[in-house]
C-alpha cells in the first residue's frame, strides 16, 4: 500500500528531530533507548536512572496475530430504493413518447407466426415495452404517461410477471390471464392419459399452447433466510457475509492465530483458514496487504501463558473471499467452538464493542 501522506512530518522526524512528548510516553520500554535525539539523550538517561526501578523482568511484548476476514460477496443485485424504482419506471414510460415507432418489419417477416403474434400483443398493450403497462406514446392519450399512486405497474413483481406472461402467451383472444400459465403442464399430463379419447374440445385446448413453459425465477428470499439459519451461505444474498468464529473464551471474532516463524501475513492467512475451518472451502486471499488491525491489551488479572511476556496482541486482518464450500470446525487446531456467517449489521450485535470499533471501517457497506 502506498501510504504517501504526512510526508513532511515523517521526513522531519527521520532527519533526527526529537520525538514528540506523547509518542515518547507511549513507547515506553522498547523504544526508550533509540527514540531520543542525541541532544536529549543524556538528560533522558539521567531521568530514567533516577526514577525507574531496576528492570528484573523482560520487556513486555505483544503477540502478532494474523486474522482472516473471509467473506462471501453478494450474489444478487440489491433491492432498488423506492425512488430509484419509481424513477426508472417514469423514465421508461417517458421514453415511449420520445422513441421512434417500433420497426416491426425489421424484426419480423410479414405474415409469419411471429409477426402475427406481435400484432396481437401490441394491440393489447399498445407499446413495444412489455413491462410498463398499457400505454401508447403516440396518439391522443400520449400525454397521459404518468402512473397513479399505488398503481400495480410500479411493483417490481408485477413487471417481472408481465415479462413472464409475455413469453408464455401468444396473444390470442381466448387466452385468460390465469389459466394459460398452467396449461403447458396440464397438456403434457393430459397428452398421455387422454390421447386415446381425444375430443375436439381437448384438441382445441391443446392447440392454444404454442410456447414452451417458462421457468419462474427463484425467489430472492431463500429458505435459509426464512429459517434464520446463520450457518448457511445461501442466505442474505444481497449482502456480504463474513465468517465469524467463537473462540475458547466464547468471544465472536474473525479466525485468528499467531504468526509462526518467518511466514508473512498472506501465508499465515492461508494456514489459519485451513486450520480453523477446514480444507473444503474454495477460498482466495485477495492480496498481501492487511485491510485493518486490532490491538488488544490483556486485563491485569487475565490468565496467560507463564513464560509469556505478552501484555496483549495485535491482529492484522487479511481479506479473503469464498467461492464455494462450507466451513467445518471439526478437529480445528485453534480451539474454536462455533461459527456463523453474518452480515455487517448482524456482526455488530455479536462482537465486543472495542473489537467492532477496530473492524467496522474495513467492512464493505453492502
Amino acid at each position, binding site marked *: *500500500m502506498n501510504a504517501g501522506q504526512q510526508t513532511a512530518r515523517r521526513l522531519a522526524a527521520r532527519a533526527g528531530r526529537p520525538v514528540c512528548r506523547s509518542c515518547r510516553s507511549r513507547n515506553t520500554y522498547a523504544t526508550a533507548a533509540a527514540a531520543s535525539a542525541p541532544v536529549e539523550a543524556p538528560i533522558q538517561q539521567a531521568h530514567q536512572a533516577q526514577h525507574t526501578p531496576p528492570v528484573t523482568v523482560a520487556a513486555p511484548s*505483544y503477540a502478532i496475530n494474523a486474522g482472516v476476514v473471509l467473506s462471501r460477496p453478494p450474489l444478487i*443485485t440489491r433491492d432498488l430504493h423506492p425512488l430509484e424504482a419509481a424513477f426508472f419506471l417514469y423514465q421508461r414510460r417517458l421514453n415511449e413518447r420520445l422513441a*421512434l*415507432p417500433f420497426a416491426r418489419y425489421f424484426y419480423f417477416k410479414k405474415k409469419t407466426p411471429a409477426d402475427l403474434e406481435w400484432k396481437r400483443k401490441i394491440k393489447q398493450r399498445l407499446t413495444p415495452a412489455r413491462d410498463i403497462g398499457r400505454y401508447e406514446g403516440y396518439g391522443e392519450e400520449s400525454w397521459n404517461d404518468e402512473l397513479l399512486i399505488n398503481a400495480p405497474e410500479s411493483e417490481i413483481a408485477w413487471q417481472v410477471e408481465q415479462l413472464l406472461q409475455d413469453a408464455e402467451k401468444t396473444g390470442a383472444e381466448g387466452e385468460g390471464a390465469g389459466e394459460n400459465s398452467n396449461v403447458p403442464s396440464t397438456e403434457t399430463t393430459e397428452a398421455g392419459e387422454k390421447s386415446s379419447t381425444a375430443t375436439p374440445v381437448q384438441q382445441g385446448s391443446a392447440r392454444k399452447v404454442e410456447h414452451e413453459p417458462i421457468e419462474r425465477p427463484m425467489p430472492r428470499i431463500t429458505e435459509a433466510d426464512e429459517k434464520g439459519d446463520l450457518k448457511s451461505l445461501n442466505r442474505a444474498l444481497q449482502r456480504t457475509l463474513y465468517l465469524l468464529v467463537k473462540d475458547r473464551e466464547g468471544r465472536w471474532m474473525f479466525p485468528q492465530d499467531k504468526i509462526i516463524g518467518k511466514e508473512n501475513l498472506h501465508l499465515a492467512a492461508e494456514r489459519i483458514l485451513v486450520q480453523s475451518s477446514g480444507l473444503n472451502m474454495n477460498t482466495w486471499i485477495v492480496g498481501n496487504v492487511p485491510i485493518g*488491525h486490532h490491538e488488544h491489551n490483556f486485563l491485569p488479572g487475565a490468565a496467560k501463558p507463564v513464560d509469556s511476556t505478552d501484555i496483549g496482541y495485535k491482529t492484522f486482518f487479511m481479506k479473503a473471499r469464498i467461492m464455494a464450500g*462450507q466451513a467445518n470446525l471439526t478437529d480445528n487446531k485453534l480451539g474454536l467452538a462455533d461459527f456463523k456467517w453474518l452480515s455487517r449489521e448482524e456482526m455488530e450485535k455479536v462482537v465486543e464493542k472495542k473489537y467492532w470499533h477496530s473492524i467496522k471501517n474495513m467492512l464493505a457497506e453492502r
Partner: protein
Amino acid sequence: MNLSIFRPTSRHLTPSTFRTPTLLRQNARPTISKPTTTTPAPRAPFSATTFLQKRKTKNLTDPRITAIRYHLTHPLTPRPLRFSRTRYLRHWTIHRAWLLFLRKQRWTQERALERQYMSMRAACEALRLLDDKGNTVSEAEAGGFGADAGSLGARGREVGRLYRSAMSKKKVWGSVPVEYARAQVDFPSREGWNHAWMR
C-alpha cells in the same frame, strides 16, 4: 520473370495493362476477314476475369434496409416532447430529486471507500512501525514507506518485516481465480450455494 502470381483475379482490380497490348494490336492491325466467312473478330482465347452479369431485374433493395431508412427519416425525428406548465414543473422536480439522490448515493459510496482505504492505511502504518516483539517503534527506527518501502531504519531488519513482505507485489495479479469474475444477477440460481464443495 514470372509475374502471374501477382496478377489479381478479380475484375475491378485488374490493371488494364494486361489487356491493352492485345487490343492495340488488333486496332493497329485490323484483321483481314473474308466477306464470305462471317466469323466474329477473334477475341482473347482465355480470360481470367469475370464478366459483369447484366441485371435482369430491377434493383431490389432488402426490405430491412427499407425499414431502417424509413424509420431513420421518420417525419417525427426527433420527436418533440411537449409538456404543459404543471407537467413540466413536475418533471423538473423529479429530475432535481433524482440528482439529489445520486449525489447522496455517490457521497455515501465515496465515504465507504475512504473508510476502507484509511483502515488499510492505518494497518500498514502499524505494520511498518512494528518490531519483532510486537512493540511500536519510533519513526527513526522504522524503515521507509511507499516507493522507499525496502529501506531499513536504525534498528535494521527486525523492524517492519511484515510490512516489507506485505508491500511485495509478486504474484498479486497472477492468482485471481476465475470464479471471482462472477457477476451479480437479479434472481438466485436454482442450485443455490454449493455447500458440498470438496477440495
